[in-house]
């Protein structure tokens, strides 16, 4: 009955390859993506240097790189990144805990579902980011107001996905553990929660993009430091290289966190396709 060939585990072979070979593979497998990115950057460089020709309207990628370098050397970029990171992490963590909790309440009690549903649906659909100026008025221009904006933006997708995940637990799996005498607590921890995890993760991933938007928009409306504040200052002084540098950092952070999350998902949920 042992047929190792019929069930070769994906990834087992590539682990034996050298790092250099894997890196070559990485670029070769995605050669069209890399080509497309470099072509796009080249077009951008050409348009901003030759057609627009003014740093006041559009900065070329090389000018953005220079700005990034200068901002790094002066230590200014580090200050902004640290502030924004702190705001994002605190707001995001609070929203995750709160969102999973609210989702659990909604999935496990009818009263909870009925009383929370209108607020969750209403506030999820509302562009609450427009309320950022209000939060700054209430909580000041320090980091607290940004934390609140991030948390408000992230909490609802997490809540909705947690609730959906718990609610869509296959009934026959619940019945199976029930047949072995499982109590309500065991059913939750051994079936409902693991079955909901992929949904919860999807909610957390959605929350990353929304949280980043929250940080930047809240900082645009008033802050002492942070990438949003840096961007808004650059815009006011027509410093396009700095503006694009800020946006680039945000884009890289968004991509890195989203793909980091995908990696984490594969590590934590290896049983999925």
């Amino acid at each position, binding site marked *: *009955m042992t047929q190792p060939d019929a069930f070769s585990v994906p990834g087992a072979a590539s682990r034996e390859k050298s790092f250099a070979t894997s890196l070559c593979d990485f670029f070769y497998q995605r050669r069209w993506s890399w080509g497309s990115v470099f072509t796009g950057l080249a077009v951008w460089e050409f348009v901003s240097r030759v057609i627009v020709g003014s740093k006041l309207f559009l900065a070329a990628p090389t000018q953005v790189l220079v700005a990034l370098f200068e901002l790094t050397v002066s230590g200014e970029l580090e200050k902004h990144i640290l502030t924004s990171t702190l705001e994002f992490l605190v707001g995001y963590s609070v929203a995750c805990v709160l969102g999973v909790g609210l989702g659990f309440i909604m999935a496990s009690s009818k009263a909870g579902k009925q009383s929370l549903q209108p607020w969750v649906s209403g506030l999820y659909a509302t562009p609450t980011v427009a309320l950022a100026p209000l939060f700054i008025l209430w909580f000041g221009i320090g980091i607290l107001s940004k934390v609140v904006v991030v948390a408000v933006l992230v909490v609802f997708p997490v809540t909705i996905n947690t609730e959906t995940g718990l609610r869509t637990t296959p009934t*026959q799996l619940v*019945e199976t553990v029930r047949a072995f005498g499982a109590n309500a607590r065991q059913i939750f921890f*051994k079936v409902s929660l*693991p079955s909901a995890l992929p949904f919860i993760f999807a909610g957390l991933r959605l929350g990353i993009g929304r949280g980043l938007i929250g940080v930047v928009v809240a900082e645009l409306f008033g802050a002492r430091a942070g990438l949003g504040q840096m961007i808004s200052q650059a815009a006011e002084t027509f410093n396009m290289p700095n503006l694009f540098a800020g946006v680039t950092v945000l884009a890289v952070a968004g991509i890195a966190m989203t793909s980091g999350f995908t990696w984490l998902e594969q590590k934590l949920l290896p049983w999925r396709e």
Partner: protein
Amino acid sequence: MTDAPVKLSVADLTKRFGSLEVLQNITTEIRNGEFISIVGPSGCGKTTFLRIIGGLEQASGGEAHLDGRRIEGPGADRGFVFQQDNLLPWRDILANTEIGPEINGALSPEQRRNTLRLLKLVGLEGFEHYYPRQLSGGMRQRVNLARALAVDPALLLMDEPFSALDAQTREIMQTELLRVWEEGRKTVLFVTHQIDEAVYLSYRIFVFARRPGRINEIIDVDLPRPRPLSIKRTPRFVEYVDHIWKLIEEDVRVSVLEEHAG
């Protein structure tokens, strides 16, 4: 077999869904070590009967006792083999097989040895750390069986466990089931649509009738054991199948017509 102690006794068991009487006054006794099959047309209540014995549903009237204890809910004294394998996709085969002992707080090194022995018995040695999606339907049903046996149940309840498998796999699984069963001689209640499956496996067959669901006839299968698959082509075997088919033919016709009428 007739002098073995009574394992399961069922008295006046009745089940109603609203005004519909699904099971009417089922009374019977099953002895220790018996392999009993229940056959009957769709809607005769055979699965409902099994689910009541498993404690997954409440009877509307009457009672059932297992080893003298009244059945009031699910418990580790029964092992349920479901029609779908219902394996937890996030657990590997070993952890799926041990879910029963785990729920009942009975995990131990000794239990682990028993689980590994059961997986070997059902032919899955070496697959302990595979996930369900990596296994074929037949292999997943073997895990389904090993999982039920892992609680060392007094009574094994099987609800059409091979109905989702293709014809050849099904025949192999029937012989495998008998091989596994010979090892421990558990008392088994096996629900099936397939008459030949019931005759091949059982000591006795309860033929159910429908509307309301009740035991129409109990048939003693007097065929020698161990039974090779070729026994299915012997005249005695075919006689049993014919006899049972005649018992349920009319019921099946009616139920098929009703299904088509919607």
